[in-house]
């Protein structure tokens, strides 16, 4: 009994338990949402021709798709499959969901990483520029630019840009078959360019703001003033002390964005025909491929939770103050 209690008190174990509970919650939510959506696999594949089917035929189709069983049974049968590595099958194309996901996930991850890089490339120098002389024109100017980046629906600008490039210069890499990074890096990067730019711009504003804010905050810190008083040259001060510490919250913000990028990339993936996870789930929803949606969303959630868990653990190990809590 005491062993169990001490296990419970161990915060790591508690965290893992919470992570598992979160995943269960996600799976139930996905399952429920799908079942509540109007229509099912029969209407999705037959359309109005489903009306020509007799009740017997409908019953046999329901059995085939596994939707005749009670909901709870369906849930556990799917969950059981997932826990043994069988993520299910897309009924129309007979594709294995695990295969589809393993193909699509790295693409979205690549898009997310590139977008964060774009955001950093735009936001950090911008924030530094703004903070270098707070209140001056460069500050207000760059704040305005950042504001516009946040306010304009970027996907619209991206579509317009893409159309214009195709029309004017006949340049349209996204019209070609999608190429993965290792297969054809040149084409891949061209295909990712506009999407990553679009997503990157839309998340560059928080990066900009955070950089600016933390640089301004750090500059006033005691240890910086001490260093300045001690005669440390300004350039070294900027680089070693200010910059390094200022960038910490920036990196944190970028990490937070990642989770949102996974979900928010759906629109961009759809517009630019990027065969990523978001598009897979979206198409799964329209085609009423329950297994595809349930398993893919679960995979995304697992990733999300795993990353959170891992960083929590390392954070506690590294930061003594956190350990004391």
């Amino acid at each position, binding site marked *: 009994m005491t062993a169990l209690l001490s296990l419970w008190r161990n915060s790591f174990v508690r965290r893992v338990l919470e992570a598992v509970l979160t995943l269960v919650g996600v799976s139930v939510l996905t399952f429920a949402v799908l079942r509540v959506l109007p229509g099912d696999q029969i209407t999705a594949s037959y359309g109005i021709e489903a009306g020509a089917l007799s009740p017997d035929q409908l019953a046999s189709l329901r059995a085939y798709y596994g939707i005749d069983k009670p909901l709870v049974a369906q849930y556990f049968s799917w969950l059981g499959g997932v826990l043994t590595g069988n993520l299910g099958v897309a009924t129309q194309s007979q594709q294995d969901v695990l295969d589809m996901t393993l193909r699509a996930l790295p693409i979205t991850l690549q898009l997310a990483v590139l977008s964060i890089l774009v955001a950093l490339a735009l936001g950090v120098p911008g924030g530094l520029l703004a903070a270098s002389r707070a209140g001056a024109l460069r500050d207000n100017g760059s704040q305005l630019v950042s504001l516009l980046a946040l306010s304009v629906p970027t996907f*619209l600008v991206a579509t317009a840009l893409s159309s214009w490039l195709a029309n004017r210069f006949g340049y349209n890499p996204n019209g070609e078959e999608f190429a993965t990074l290792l297969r054809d890096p040149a084409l891949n990067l061209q295909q990712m360019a506009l999407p990553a730019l679009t997503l990157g711009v839309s998340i560059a504003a928080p990066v900009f703001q955070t950089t600016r804010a933390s640089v301004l905050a750090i500059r006033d810190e005691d240890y910086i003033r001490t260093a300045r008083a001690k005669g440390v040259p300004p350039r070294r001060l900027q680089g070693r002390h200010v910059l390094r510490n200022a960038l910490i919250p920036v990196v944190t913000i970028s990490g937070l964005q990642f989770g949102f990028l996974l979900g928010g990339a759906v629109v961009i993936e759809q517009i630019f025909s990027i065969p990523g996870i978001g598009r897979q789930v979206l198409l799964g929803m329209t085609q009423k491929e329950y297994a595809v949606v349930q398993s893919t969303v679960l995979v995304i959630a697992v990733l999300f939770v795993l990353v959170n868990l891992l960083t929590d653990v390392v954070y506690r190990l590294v930061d003594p103050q956190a350990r004391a809590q």
Partner: protein
Amino acid sequence: MSATTTAAGVPARAPRGGALRAALLRPAGVVGLLLGLVVLVLAVMGTFGLTPYDPAKQDVTQSLVGPSGQHWFGTDQFGRDVFSRVCSGLANSLRIAVVSVGISGVLGILIGVLAGYYGGWVDRVVGVLTNVLFAFPSLLLALALAATLDRSWVTVSIAIATVYLPIFARVARAPVLRLRHVDYVTASTAIGRPRLSTLFAHVVPNMWGILLVQVTLSLSWSILTEAALSFLGFGTPPPAASLGGMVYDAQTISAVAPWMLAFPGLAIVVFVVGLNLLGDALRSTLDPRSGGRR
């Protein structure tokens, strides 16, 4: 889009009306307020039907007319006046923004505050629930909800609210965790005041500044989310006008009638910029260290 919070902690006693007034006196705040007023005026016109034309009235003899003295923003293929539809669309978008942020704000803050204040298993349960919502791809959640329920501005609002609820919960929880140990709060419970009462009497009023910032941010995001939902075909259904819906409808036809895309798009930008400026001004006022003049 991130759950940006202020970079600093919560001041011991935040000035009340002072913060708002100070914010509005900044140049950014002024511009934000002006833009907000413009939007508000147009939206009010839209709500009470004070527009030059009935937004739903079709007049095919005036189909696809460019901006002119008679139709300031031109007409669409049904001959409907785009200016009137933009007003109506602003009213609709504003309504969705307010309702969705209202629902997610009130519920989220309540949940977050309770979780932070009581701690223990309440906090854990809330933590798991908000994580579930975070881990679920946000736009898809909104899509699913919008597709399930009868499409109307109410369901679109609920769909958007569900996405932002965990953000409010998280934002509200953090300062509560710190405030729990502040002198006047512990003193209050020490003298026997029930915890819940302390909560609402002392803790919440000191947080409202941060919450206000989050509210303005969320209002602007909700407009953009509605636009994204419409873009995927799940926004407010016609014939009601919504900015996102107008942009979605205008995509192809904008090749022959660019005004159908430009003006609703511009309205979205102006609205969101105004809200963000206001939010920025508020944030600078409440926490001088997060930026602004020195």
